[in-house]
């Protein structure tokens, strides 16, 4: 069995619950990433904040009540929605949600199944002491599984 620690990124960006939402946004932009684990002083994950949580600040909530919005051909004034600037100064704590994490020894297919069921794009990884040690994307996990089927292909 291949464990997730063999394909995860070890250099993981995270943020404190007391940091502002603006800081979280800046971290996501500067590293072009979609998910930030929120950690305490001992690097224990306490939640996550991601693109989805931030973009929901501008999306009309009613979108979530409709099965599809195909019939609206032009989002007009909604395209210009911006969250209230005061919201961006609130602590990350106010919008973070509980995140799913896996242990470093977790198998790849189990990790993938968790991502699928919880509709996650990135999965934070913790060690035996529940400290954040890495993060793996769907692509990281998926390609690692596929590699185990056909072996590493030499480039070009």
């Amino acid at each position, binding site marked *: 069995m291949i464990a997730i620690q063999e394909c995860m990124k070890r250099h993981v960006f995270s943020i404190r619950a007391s940091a502002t939402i603006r800081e979280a946004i800046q971290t996501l932009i500067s590293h072009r990433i979609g998910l930030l684990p929120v950690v305490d002083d001992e690097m224990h994950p306490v939640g996550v904040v991601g693109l989805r949580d931030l973009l929901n600040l501008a999306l*009309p*909530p*009613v*979108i979530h*009540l*409709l*099965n*599809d*919005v*195909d*019939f*609206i*051909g*032009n*989002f*007009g*004034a*909604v395209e210009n929605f911006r969250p209230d600037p005061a919201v961006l100064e609130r602590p990350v704590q106010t919008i973070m949600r509980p995140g799913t994490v896996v242990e470093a020894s977790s198998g790849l297919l189990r990790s993938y199944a968790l991502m699928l069921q919880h509709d996650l794009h990135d999965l934070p990884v913790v060690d035996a002491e529940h400290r954040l040690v890495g993060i793996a994307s769907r692509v990281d996990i998926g390609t690692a599984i596929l590699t185990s089927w056909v072996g590493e292909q030499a480039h070009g």
Partner: protein
Amino acid sequence: MVNALVSGGIFAVSLGLIFSEKINRTIVTMAGASLMILLGSLLGFYTEENALQSIDWDTLGLLLGMMILVAMLEPTGFFQYMAVRASKLSGGEPVRLFLLLGSVTTVLSMFLDNVTTVVLIAPVTVLICEVMGLPPAPFLMAEALLSNTGGVATLVGDPPNVLIGSAANLTFLDFILHATPVVLFAWAGAVILLRILFRAELRARPINAETIQALNPAEAITDRRAAVRILIVIGVAILLFFLHGLLHVSPALVALSSAAAALVLVRPPVDDILRRVEWSVLLFFGALFVMVGGLERAGVLNLLVSVLEGGAGLPAPVFGVLLIWVVALISAVVDNVPITIALIPVIQGLGQAGMNPNPLWWALAFGAGFGGNGTIIGSSANIVVAALSEKNRSPITSALWNRRGLPVMLLTCLIASLIYYLAYPWFAD
């Protein structure tokens, strides 16, 4: 006397709990009904048999049949289609959008469940307003208010009418002849009043009126074939409702057999459809019937009848108008279903005591129906639009409702009272 106190106490505490909204109304009434049967059997004023007899199966059958039809129509996208079509037809002109969305909601509410209509049309309304850059509040409030108003027009339009029709043996045609004309005037009055009250909001120009051109109603329909078949069945059902008195079939049979016909024609995944049926509402009704049956057997309602008979000294038209307003004021602050279920045996009692019950049925229907417009919690449709608006930039507050909804209730009750008073012999017939 003990019996009356015990059963009256159970009913009063249950109503209090329902109105406090601390516990779900279905849970409260099921507990209340169980208690009524248990204590009733112990004290000897109520038996399980009595309880079963006090359930109005016609009402439950009619509601269930209509719920199944609506549950089948919901996922086809028909309601969204109507909202999008109406919006596109408005050309982005706020007053026309207001009139068209209001009319669509009214017409659908005349034949289908008000809450479902509003639950499905209101989110589309909010989104269309948002993309156009218009405040959604006037449109949402008009939808709820006109849905409540439209519901009064027909036998199947809202639950109090279903209850009254079943108890008083009033046919669909009776409602078309007596309630619909009143609703037409009340509706026109409500639209004009809303147009005036919201004049400032409706004067606002949409920021992105061009988005209206990009609306595509056809995209809203997800299952055209099923929608067409269910609509045909509903059309035939409405036709049969008109004739049910002549054909000597109950409205419940019409509704349930129409539901069966739609199921046969569409053959949807039946478990999914049945999951959409509001079983909690049916249980709430059933449990209320059992509780009110207990009140009746314990003699509480007779006490009420003898008190009200004192009012029989009043001229009959005045008594009826008074009933409209008393029921409307109660319905404005509390659920109109328990009130209607409790007043039905009282009106029957007044009839047995020698009063003409016919005009009282209409007074009850107008009061229970129009009263719901009075406050933000007056009807389920009001609660739905208020909850929806809470999440956007122009929330509908209780204060706003008192300024815009309460006048609509007062005007519609006034119009109903006037017509009722002037055309009293027509309602007494």
